[in-house]
């Protein structure tokens, strides 16, 4: 709706503004008061109406005639009812439309009104004003009691406003705009002579009475022909709104496409200045290179750490030896932090909104004011930010969810939202061009940058349960459950064409989950079914091959309960955890190029409840988080070998770095109160670091933007890996020997310092020897054997009897 207005209306306003000067604007207002099109006449009549309300009584019309001649010229005939064929609304329309004329007329009317007010205060003998009685009293005291004068003295100035006196009455005074909400203006109507006017009226009536009863219409004419625009009045403003919504853009014939606008909108657009103000030039803020961290020569990654139960946040370079701190701030965020999808920004949460930080020094880049914000989501392109707050929403002003432009900081659009249970409410297409939201029986897809509904309407999908965008193209997958005889259905829809590229019917469905492979090459729909004649739930993995014609589907069926499912991010494998504790197994499947799905390997007796694939694929960490005590298995799926089995006791999180070289396991204070730490492992499961942080809460790797290398370049690099690995190994050796050298060096200096300190302390100790001797009556107690001469040797013999008691008889 909002967009329709914004886009369509200004054009219409411009069109409408044009005819203004062409109209007989120069006509003196008073000359033809009865003529409907004369811009002056209705204005004057209008002015008169107001006067009648404001004026004190019947004598008023006579009075202003003296002071306000210009107005009076138009006003005098006013009291007589307007010509019956002139719809009042249309008259008003006329006075609004001719832009240049209006202000002058307005001034005239105002003058007339002022005059009327003056006239009243001068000539009002009724003593209705508050000032009256006291004046009377004064007069009475003066002694002229016979005939008290109720008229104000010559120099009396009425300092009581009308609002004060008649506030309660004036409040109900009809507004200029009253009643005009139900009026619409239709443009691009065929211009016809009187002979065909009736026919036109019929056609118009037919089209527009669909939206409500038309109580009035007006066809302005010029030289015997209609002007090509008309005014229609409905019985209620709702009908008018309906008409604007539905009839705008109505194609009457080839030449005539109706443009329908609310009459009140004209008012709005009339006030826009004709002169275009050149927007003030904003100084360019150089934020520096926001991607500087990618230029790090060692290709290290960054991560954020929240600790001390949220009081402190740090950013580190990940380093094999020890993390290198880049930035540490107290109370940087009030709850947690988020990185943007390409890593450019760090978002912090505050009671009053969201702040974005970036650049080398982590300066504030943007702020979004959203009181009580709880959840956020970035568009994948990092252009938009979606924020959610439960506090701000009101009926008229949707503010539960706000979409912001990150670069300008401007609010793009607000939405209502009842519950944030399924965050993100809005799901973005991979390129950030579209975002969609599901409500009851409806899927609403919006487009950027207009933030308007795609094709101005939502999709009606009765029963829609879930949907998700392909990460590799503008395709939406959604599913609807069974409804009586109609089977459950998974649909893939291309956008913006809305073409259904694949529909798959499913039977006896309990639940579906949509899992996209990261490139959008495959979609797995995990279908929980209760087939007839069997007991319990069976799970089908319906694998859609997105890159092939017709999108072929293959199915893998499993009878055991499914604990977790995950696609290999850049590949064609997937992993499934199934079974019931303690008999949990993991199975690795491979979708072959011919479509066959092959079980590569199954490991049983796993202690795992979550699957974490390396972002580059091939390697996977199976973790038994929380209740499973933090068991970890590092698996290479290329040959399906378990590289290492380890444990990070009570681990609550596993986070791969964006390159897939390292993985962090952590025990968050949010889930466990002791041993809060994060450990760094290689992808092979070799433990590199244990970082204990007081009340550690969260570690998040800074994401990297997609690689700029082409597939061929990557292939070439793979081919030359041996060459590179030689260089890297050498570097590693160097840094390792450097590290151990550094460590030894550090220890040496510490030892040296300590030795120095001890030497000093010893010297002092020796100096105090005499004092010690004095205090202990001359006995030297400095060494254990310092008084060896004083020792008396004593031999004591104990007679020990040994008795063996059989174990059983002890009790």
């Amino acid at each position, binding site marked *: 709706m909002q967009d329709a207005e914004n886009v369509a209306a200004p054009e219409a306003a411009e069109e409408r503004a044009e005819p203004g000067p062409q109209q007989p604007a120069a006509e003196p207002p008073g000359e033809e008061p009865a003529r409907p099109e004369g811009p002056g006449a209705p204005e004057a009549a209008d002015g008169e109406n107001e006067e009648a309300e404001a004026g004190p009584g019947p004598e008023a019309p006579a009075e202003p005639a003296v002071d306000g001649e210009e107005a009076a010229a138009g006003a005098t005939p006013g009291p007589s009812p307007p010509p019956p064929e002139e719809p009042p609304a249309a008259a008003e329309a006329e006075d609004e439309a001719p832009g240049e004329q209006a202000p002058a007329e307005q001034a005239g009317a105002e003058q007339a009104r002022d005059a009327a007010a003056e006239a009243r205060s001068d000539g009002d003998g009724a003593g209705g004003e508050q000032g009256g009685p006291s004046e009377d009293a004064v007069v009475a005291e003066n002694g002229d009691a016979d005939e008290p004068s109720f008229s104000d003295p010559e120099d009396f100035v009425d300092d009581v406003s009308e609002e004060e006196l008649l506030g309660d009455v004036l409040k109900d005074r009809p507004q200029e705009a009253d009643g005009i909400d139900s009026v619409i203006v239709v443009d691009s109507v065929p211009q016809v002579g009187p002979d065909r006017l009736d026919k036109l009226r019929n056609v118009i009536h037919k089209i527009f009475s669909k939206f409500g009863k038309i109580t009035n219409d007006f066809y302005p004419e010029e030289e015997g022909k209609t002007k090509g625009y008309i005014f229609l009045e409905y019985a209620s403003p709702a009908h008018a709104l309906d008409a604007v919504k539905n009839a705008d853009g109505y194609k009457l014939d080839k030449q005539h496409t109706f443009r329908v606008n609310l009459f009140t909108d004209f008012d709005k657009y009339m006030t826009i200045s004709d002169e275009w103000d050149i927007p003030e030039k904003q100084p360019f803020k150089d934020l520096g290179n926001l991607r500087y961290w990618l230029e790090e020569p060692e290709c290290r990654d960054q991560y954020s750490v929240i600790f001390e139960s949220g009081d402190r946040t740090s950013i580190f370079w990940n380093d094999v030896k020890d993390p290198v701190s880049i930035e540490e701030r107290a109370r940087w965020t009030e709850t947690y932090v988020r990185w943007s999808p390409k890593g450019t920004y760090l978002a912090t949460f505050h009671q009053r909104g969201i702040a974005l930080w970036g650049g080398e020094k982590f300066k504030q880049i943007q702020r979004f004011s959203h009181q009580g914000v709880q959840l956020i989501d970035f568009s994948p392109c990092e252009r938009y930010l979606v924020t959610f707050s439960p506090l701000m929403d009101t009926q008229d002003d949707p503010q539960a969810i706000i979409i912001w432009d990150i670069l300008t900081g401007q609010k793009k659009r607000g939405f209502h939202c009842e519950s944030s249970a399924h965050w993100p409410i809005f799901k973005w297409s991979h390129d950030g061009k579209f975002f969609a939201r599901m409500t009851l029986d409806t899927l609403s897809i919006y487009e950027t940058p207009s933030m308007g509904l795609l094709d101005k309407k939502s999709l009606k999908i009765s029963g829609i349960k879930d949907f998700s965008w392909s990460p590799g193209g503008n395709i939406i997958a959604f599913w609807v459950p069974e409804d009586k005889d109609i089977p459950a259905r998974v649909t893939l829809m291309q956008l913006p064409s809305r073409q259904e590229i694949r529909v798959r019917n499913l039977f006896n469905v309990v639940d579906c989950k949509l899992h996209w492979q990261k490139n959008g090459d495959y979609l797995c729909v995990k279908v929980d079914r209760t087939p007839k004649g069997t007991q319990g739930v069976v799970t089908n993995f319906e694998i859609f091959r997105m890159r092939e014609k017709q999108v072929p589907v293959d199915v893998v069926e499993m009878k055991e309960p499914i604990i977790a499912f995950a696609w290999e991010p850049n590949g064609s494998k997937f992993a499934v955890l199934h079974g019931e504790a303690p008999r949990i197994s993991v199975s690795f499947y491979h979708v072959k190029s011919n479509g066959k799905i092959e079980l590569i390997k199954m490991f049983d007796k796993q202690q795992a409840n979550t699957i974490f694939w390396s972002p580059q694929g091939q390697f996977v960490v199976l973790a038994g988080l929380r209740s499973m005590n933090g068991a970890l298995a590092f698996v290479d799926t290329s040959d399906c070998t378990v590289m290492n089995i380890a444990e990070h006791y009570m681990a609550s999180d596993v986070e791969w770095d964006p390159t897939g070289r390292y993985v962090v396991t952590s025990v968050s204070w949010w889930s466990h109160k002791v041993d809060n730490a994060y450990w760094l492992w290689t992808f092979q499961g070799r433990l590199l670091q244990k970082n204990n942080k007081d009340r550690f809460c969260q570690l998040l790797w800074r994401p990297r933007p997609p690689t700029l290398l082409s597939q061929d370049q990557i292939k070439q690099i793979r081919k030359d890996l041996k060459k590179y690995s030689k260089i890297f190994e050498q570097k590693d050796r160097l840094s390792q020997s450097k590290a151990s050298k550094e460590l*030894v060096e550090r220890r040496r200096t510490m030892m040296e310092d300590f030795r120095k300190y001890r030497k000093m302390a010893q010297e*002092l*100790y020796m100096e105090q020897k005499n004092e010690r001797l004095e*205090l*202990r009556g001359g006995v030297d107690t400095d060494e254990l054997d310092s008084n060896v001469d004083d020792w008396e040797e004593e031999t004591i013999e104990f007679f020990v009897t040994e008795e063996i008691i059989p174990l059983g008889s002890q009790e």
Partner: protein
Amino acid sequence: MGHTGAVWCVDADWDTKHVLTGSADNSCRLWDCETGKQLALLKTNSAVRTCGFDFGGNIIMFSTDKQMGYQCFVSFFDLRDPSQIDSNEPYMKIPCNDTKITSAVWGPLGECIIAGHESGELNQYSAKSGEVLVNVKEHSRQINDIQLSRDMTMFVTASKDNTAKLFDSTTLEHQKTFRTERPVNSAALSPNYDHVVLGGGQEAMDVTTTSTRIGKFEARFFHLAVEEEFGRVKGHFGPINSVAFHPDGKSYSSGGEDGYVRIHYFDPQYFEFEFEA
């Protein structure tokens, strides 16, 4: 005969003639070590938390808890003046209004005492005037234990903030820090190596809810100079409350909340171990 409440502290003078004990029965008592005869009974208003003989064995001090509306005090008696004992009138009484003393020892030569507080602060009080000579705050939480080196030139503190720290006795200058993941209840310095042993673990009140595995009731050995851990001894199934080295440095013992005192003799490797430096 004897205390009627938990005994919180014991000290013997240098020639082991006398023994001093402080108890939750609101008394501090002086005993003859050989005969076990009670020589003095000093009544207090609240539990006696720490006590000790000075270097020469002539002056005793003890501190009381902030408890039942009574302040924390450190009292000093000179045993050479029997009237002080008889009248239960110490020659000096230092009030500690802000934060109570949780551990205290005599400084070298008996000129001052070093007290660790509930807040993590360390104070050096003059034994003559009672004034605060040095105040430092290196720990963020309660100091559970203070133990001097054999030559009394330095001491190690054990704190609830999961660390133990080494200080200079005279200046109270912070020297080293030894970090763990659990509260440290006690720390002791080896008499002949640059080693320190730390004992502690998950707090006793939390132990029933945690397994011994995450309780970490191990005695941990650190090198004094490089602050690195080089050894751990398991065995207790409750937190360790106190640790001590044998005067010859060849063994150590630990007492735990589990009710056991464990005495461990070091392996030959212990004496050979050296950090690469």
